[in-house]
């Protein structure tokens, strides 16, 4: 059983790699490899893969308050640690946003001058969206999109890391970080144009705090609750489907 399974898996990976190269070649030929939603999605996917691989052995690589809460409910993660994990995640996101603001300060100023954007005014969300998230659809649809997206992500994470998942446990644990990264990239490609695809309350709230301090004022906090409630609900749904329905 083991040999056919491993051969099947190897052949799948081989096919996937070949198709990816063909797909990438097409994109490169068309001149769109380094621009657009896919560029952003690929970088997010790579970043998530690296972060999961790096933090996994030490903290379990939650990297997301909604996953921390879901892990506490479905996997027995100690509740006394939840608040500390969330604080560390928000603080990490805040510091990263600070560094990005310093790096891109000059370019942001130029963009704001060119588009007549004054920080704190209603149109300043155009520059603030590089840090926090702002939906381009109505709030109800955005809530649904974020919940669905995070549910899918949580489903993949909980299914891949379930102790009963023989594939990842015995044959290919090394595939877990890139598969999670690829899931994030795929979701971002779909949801990015609609809600900017948050899926992570810390990723949104940390940079939002920075924009609040850095002059965007009230605009910085527009719709902040959506990117906390929807991913948390989505993570619970995804974790439930994976741990209670799929791997009961």
């Amino acid at each position: 059983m083991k040999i056919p399974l491993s051969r099947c898996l190897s052949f799948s990976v081989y096919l996937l790699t070949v198709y990816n190269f063909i797909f990438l070649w097409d994109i490169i030929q068309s001149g769109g490899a380094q621009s657009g939603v896919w560029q952003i999605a690929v970088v997010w996917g790579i970043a998530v893969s690296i972060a999961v691989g790096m933090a996994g052995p030490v903290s379990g690589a939650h990297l997301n308050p909604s996953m921390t809460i879901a892990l506490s409910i479905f996997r027995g993660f100690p509740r006394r640690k939840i608040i500390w994990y969330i604080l560390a995640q928000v603080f990490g996101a805040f510091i990263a946003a600070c560094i990005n603001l310093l790096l891109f300060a000059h370019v942001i100023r130029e963009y704001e001058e060119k588009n007549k954007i004054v920080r704190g005014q209603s149109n300043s969300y155009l520059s603030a969206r590089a840090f926090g998230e702002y939906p381009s659809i109505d709030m109800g649809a955005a809530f649904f999109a974020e919940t669905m997206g995070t549910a899918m992500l949580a489903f993949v994470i909980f299914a891949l890391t379930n102790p009963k998942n023989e594939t990842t446990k015995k044959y290919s644990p090394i595939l877990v970080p890139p598969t999670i990264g690829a899931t994030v990239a795929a979701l971002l490609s779909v949801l990015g144009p609609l809600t900017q695809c948050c899926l992570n309350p810390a990723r949104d709230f940390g940079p939002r705090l920075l924009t609040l301090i850095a002059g965007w004022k009230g605009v910085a906090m527009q719709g902040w609750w959506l990117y906390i409630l929807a991913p948390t609900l989505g993570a619970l749904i995804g974790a439930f489907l994976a741990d209670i329905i799929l791997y009961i």
Partner: protein
Amino acid sequence: MSTSTKEQLISDDPPLEGDATRKLDEELGSSAKAFFVAPSIKGIATGFFELIPGVPSPSLFRELVSEFFGIFLIVHLGCATVCSAIFTQDIYGM
């Protein structure tokens, strides 16, 4: 230097004072002293976190550092690519 003095300095116990420090100075000189005393600084830091009520234990602290760096990496790279896309005007679709 006696083994016991070296072990005491490397351990997580509070740093040695008086005779032991003087003895180390005499036997090894200041550079070697710094080499052996450095690990005891880690011990002081660990003890410091244990003393403050409500502050995470050293193992939890390590986990939090891991979470911090993990999300730092994600947001730094992720938001930076969004910044590049938006502010350099080479984006379409968002």
